[in-house]
């Protein structure tokens, strides 16, 4: 490891979900805040163990849906107001409103879906082509049969040596310091 490289975090490997769940809980109890877990499948209870906060994503979806609803309604109002649909016994401008609801409904869903997907991408830093974790040998097994606990260097309590020792002590294997 070259001394000019910035330390990014410490990674340790576990070989089953029960151990990593217990380890994550211990790390939280120790006071670590910026920890993350890489696992091939969702582990029930892990979001509590590593202290994942409630996501603001529903609010982003609601915002997208509301904008879609209003824009679709206004667009139809705007295009109709000078050219009213004076057919099928609906002479008035607002008499046509029921017909607009189909578009309003679809556009609400469309913008809500876009907002949800976009919000999800932004909140998760997607698309992400590089992570310092890729440098670790064997990390690809996080998509197969191994579980990785990461303590970020951004954690206020992070100390390269102490954190490394702590992870080894709570049962982590191949404890590695990762540089960016």
């Amino acid at each position, binding site marked *: 490891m070259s001394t000019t490289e910035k330390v990014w975090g410490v990674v340790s490997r576990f070989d089953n979900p029960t151990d990593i769940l217990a380890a994550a809980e211990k790390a939280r109890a120790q006071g670590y805040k910026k920890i993350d877990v890489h696992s091939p499948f*969702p582990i*029930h209870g892990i*979001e509590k163990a590593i202290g994942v906060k409630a996501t603001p994503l*529903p609010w982003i979806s*609601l915002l997208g849906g509301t904008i879609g609803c209003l824009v679709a309604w206004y667009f139809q109002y705007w295009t109709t107001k000078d050219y009213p649909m004076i057919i*099928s*016994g*609906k002479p008035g401008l607002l008499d046509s409103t*029921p*017909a607009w*609801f*189909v578009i309003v409904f679809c556009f609400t869903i469309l913008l809500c879906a876009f907002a949800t997907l976009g919000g999800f991408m932004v909140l998760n830093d997607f698309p992400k082509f590089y992570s310092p974790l890729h440098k670790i040998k064997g990390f690809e097994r996080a998509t197969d049969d191994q579980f990785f606990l990461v303590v970020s260097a951004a954690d206020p309590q992070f100390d390269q040596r102490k954190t490394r020792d702590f992870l080894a002590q709570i049962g982590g294997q191949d404890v590695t310091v990762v540089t960016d």
Partner: protein
Amino acid sequence: MESPKIPFDPATAKAPTSWKGLSVLLALVGAGLAAGAWFIQKDHSRFAHAYLVGFMLVALIGTGALMFVMLQQLSRAGWSVSSRRIAEGWMSSLFLLVLLFIPLVLLAKQGHLYAWLTDFGAAAVKNAGNIPDADRLAAHVHHMSEKKAFWLNESSWLARSAFYLVAWVILAALILRRSFATDVADKEGAAANTTFIGKLSAPGIPLLGLTLTFASFDWVMSLQFDWYSTIFGVIHFADSMVLIASLLIISVACIQGKGLMKGAVNVEHKHDLAKWLFAFNTFFAFVSYAQFIIIWFADIPEETVWYHRHAADGWSLLGWISLFGHFFVIFFLLMSRHMKRNHFVTVLVSIWAILMAIVHLYWEIMPTMGYPVPHAAGPFGVQLADILVIAGLLTLSFAAFLFTLSGRNLVAVGDPRLQEGLKFENY
């Protein structure tokens, strides 16, 4: 406020046998209310229509419960096991429905309900006098009687109604029997009984779907015999799902308030019941609007006749309440996860949803009084007798619920998926 999670205490699973006495008392009260309505209501046609509102309410509670139970059993759901017995209790409304069908037939045979049962309202049109286009209306009625009498006649209506009722009663009785059997059976026996209900549900669901659709056609849509809408039964199905979700939320809250079913239904299960209510309430709005917009867009007289009738003389108010109260209020109140997990909010919304389902049925049925004579229903108004008979039939439904579950386990303790269901969590 989220209610805290406590472990399930099987000692609190059994309902007291005193429920039986209570149910008899409530049955007397319910019958008394309905009978009182009959005595204070001078207009027998109005009574018959209000009775039909109550009858449909009981029918939708029963079929909603039956559909809920069959869906859960067929999909082998875990989350609903601990509250499913309560739905099975509400299924007993279907047995009650057979009894309630007798007064309906008597009222109908006296000519208070369905114009097609006699002469398609030809005499009423003639006697009404002073109606615009009376000749054209009379010709229309005559045309309808020639075209529709093969389906809308007394004997075939009775035969079809009997078929629906018998099908529902058989399904409900088989499921109830097998479900109660799991409480006392050993592990293999309980598994076999549960599998049986699942297998019965596979043909049961389409059977119930079709019979509920046709029952809606025969019992409600035929009030306005010259109008038709294929989605009409689906609207009732959506309301039946709203009703059963609401009833489950309220029943569980009341029963747990009495110290029973401790820990069996926790915030996760209530969250899912609220999701169910939210989903089917939205579905209700979707299919109701679909029916409306197709008719509104085309604007063909033979189709718009229903909305004209139900908007005339101030009755449109109930339609607006259905749109805003039934859909928007519940939609916005239950949209957030925090609201769906809030005990008080879900119970209040459930009470509101039941009220809205009644308002919707009232709107569908009451304005057809005196059909096909225009404006025969009179201006919009709710009379005490209408409320009494609907409340009476709802009380009878509650009595049937208490009677069925009295002294029984309120949680299907023998169900093989109970442990899975208790552990369930919304991640």
